[in-house]
């Protein structure tokens, strides 16, 4: 048998049909569904008189547009949001799929709920009508976002029409320095490859620095594979992965666990597997980073200064000019002098318990800067409950943060949590596009610890100075 990458192995295990031109029907093990990209898909099923092929493999949860303030289980003020959530309620009920409504403590961001409940397991194919489905790749699953037409296709057939991507290896060698996190890894990779560097590829992240990460950290890394343009990002499962999965509500038990484990242990890239592209970064060279512009590739160490458009080439010169204007920044300004108005900690990138712990460690005994608006939005009801139990919630509240209910919130600002025009935000989310967090809002992406540091000082800050 020829050598294979991890991606090759998962792909081969899921081909239900292959046409002569290589177009495959890829079997889907888990289909995650949320309220914003699914209504038209369910409507399409109804109009064609079709059913959900595998409701037991379909998991629905509202997250994108739900308010993060109390009372949302009784009433959602915004008519359009309410209609979408009501539609998901009805669709989940009518088609008999697994469902976590806002009244359920297990509700949260779909990419946090899936792993938490043991739906996401090594070697699976996982899709969702959301680009950050790449998160689940942390388990050694092939996971990626799909459009609404594809959501309908998966609902109806449990397969996806797909062609194989190329293999890309991103190796992070050695150890990370203190104050450097999974978020800094994933942003630094995008800074190096660009937002289109991964287009056409599935990335496997490997190397000592990746192995050293917790499952939470690995999810952060894979989450932003899409920002690098890749179809998916994944990490080979190991003892940490198995330990995380064991005992989760929907993980296998008993003899099935043993059988699953035996297969999962074969899920790694063979030593002599073929890679179409290889990127290597020394872990020691990664610094705490922030974004300065309106593309996730606009990454620099916090010790750097705002670049000038003429530092770039080609179409990026105009893009950088436009970014600086939108961001209200002047070339040459040290990044750590940029004043911020708001801090947002949360999202499928950094809304897990480890992220909240990292931010709370910086905030303990401190207060946020005067006039600062700061909010924490836990990734799920269970993360929220755990943070309350550990006393972390109180650290945030004492520091002056708002302690919210679970959801996507200000990451994409579809609910009432939005930036005002010109408002500048230190965010732990994944996109800094124009208008992403609210029309005219200005976003700087960074790790939870860096966001917490900025909340205290009132400007972008090197977290290493506070450790």
């Amino acid at each position: 048998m020829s050598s294979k990458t991890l991606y090759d192995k998962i792909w081969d295990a899921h081909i239900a049909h292959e046409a002569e031109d290589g177009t495959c029907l890829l079997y889907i093990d888990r289909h995650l569904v949320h309220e914003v990209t699914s209504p038209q898909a369910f409507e399409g099923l109804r109009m064609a008189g079709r059913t959900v092929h595998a409701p037991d493999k379909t998991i629905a949860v509202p997250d994108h547009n739900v308010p993060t303030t109390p009372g949302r289980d009784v009433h959602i003020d915004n008519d359009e949001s309410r209609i979408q959530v009501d539609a998901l309620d009805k669709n989940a009920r009518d088609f008999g799929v697994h469902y976590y409504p806002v009244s359920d403590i297990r509700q949260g961001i779909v990419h946090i709920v899936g792993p938490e409940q043991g739906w996401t397991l090594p070697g699976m194919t996982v899709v969702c009508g959301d680009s950050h489905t790449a998160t689940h790749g942390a388990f050694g699953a092939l996971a990626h976002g799909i459009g609404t037409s594809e959501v309908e296709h998966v609902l109806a057939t449990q397969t996806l029409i797909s062609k194989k991507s190329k293999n890309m290896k991103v190796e992070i060698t050695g150890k990370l320095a203190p104050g450097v996190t999974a978020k800094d890894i994933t942003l630094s990779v995008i800074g190096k490859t660009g937002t289109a560097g991964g287009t056409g590829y599935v990335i496997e992240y490997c190397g000592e620095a990746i192995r050293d990460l917790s499952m939470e950290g690995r999810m952060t890394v894979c989450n932003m594979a899409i920002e690098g343009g890749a179809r998916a990002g994944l990490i080979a499962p190991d003892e940490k992965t198995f330990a995380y999965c064991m005992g989760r509500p929907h993980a296998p038990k008993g003899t099935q666990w043993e059988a699953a484990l035996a297969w999962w242990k074969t899920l790694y890239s063979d030593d002599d597997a073929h890679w179409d592209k290889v990127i290597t970064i020394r872990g020691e060279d990664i610094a705490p980073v922030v974004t300065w512009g309106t593309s996730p590739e606009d990454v620099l160490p916090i010790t750097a200064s705002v670049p000038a458009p003429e530092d770039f080439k080609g179409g990026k010169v105009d893009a950088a000019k436009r970014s600086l204007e939108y961001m209200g920044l002047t070339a040459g300004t040290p990044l750590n002098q940029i004043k911020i108005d708001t801090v947002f900690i949360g999202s499928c990138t950094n809304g897990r318990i480890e992220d909240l712990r990292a931010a709370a460690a910086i905030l303990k005994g401190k207060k946020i800067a005067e006039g600062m608006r700061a909010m924490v939005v836990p990734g799920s009801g269970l993360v929220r409950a755990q943070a309350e139990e550990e006393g972390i919630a109180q650290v945030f509240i004492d520091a002056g943060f708002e302690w919210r209910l679970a959801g996507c919130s200000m990451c994409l600002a579809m609910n009432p949590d939005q930036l005002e025009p010109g408002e500048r935000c230190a965010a732990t989310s994944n996109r800094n596009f124009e208008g992403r967090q609210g029309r005219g809002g200005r976003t700087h992406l960074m790790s939870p610890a860096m966001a917490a540091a900025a909340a205290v000082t009132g400007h972008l800050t090197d977290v290493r100075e506070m450790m």
Partner: protein
Amino acid sequence: MEKFEKLTGVAAPMDMINIDTDMIIPKNFLKTIKRTGLGVNLFDEMRYDDDRNERPDFVLNKPAYRNAEILIAGENFGCGSSREHAPWAIKDFGIRCVIAPSFADIFFNNCFKNGILPIPLPQDQVDILMKDAEKGENARITVDLENQVITTSDGEQIRFEVESFRKHCLMNGLDDIGLTLEKAASIDAFEAKAAQSRPWV
């Protein structure tokens, strides 16, 4: 799905890289449960000012391009989220073909599901089309899917590649789900086999 065979129309030049899905259709318009009606909000934040007046300098607000059917853009078009609202808005506006040096993966897939033809071309060829598009409404470009050829207003011809299955579906307006359900036996067989080999799934 609406068929795509041959299209002759005005091409709008948008010489920007990394045009993301938040630019194409901002999130406040994702709260619809329909696929139609999004054209008026295509590129909303670039197209309208804070008082909802059209910004006259935005390309699709210029008289020459108000009825554009083709869009010429910079690299990495459609990066960002998986929202199919992006191609829905493009289609609803009346654009059926987007030409750029490269596209984000999910957006590229989404186009084909909606009767839109995305064409990746080398930068120098996109530059030729960008210049042609800048001439305005008299410069009509033809996109011939069957022969895989683009013809500029000057008669210059540029060949393009497209996957055969996608071309077939687009030219015949075929519904993916119907095609896949014809292979239901293969799916059933796969499930029966997987139930043995990976029963925990």
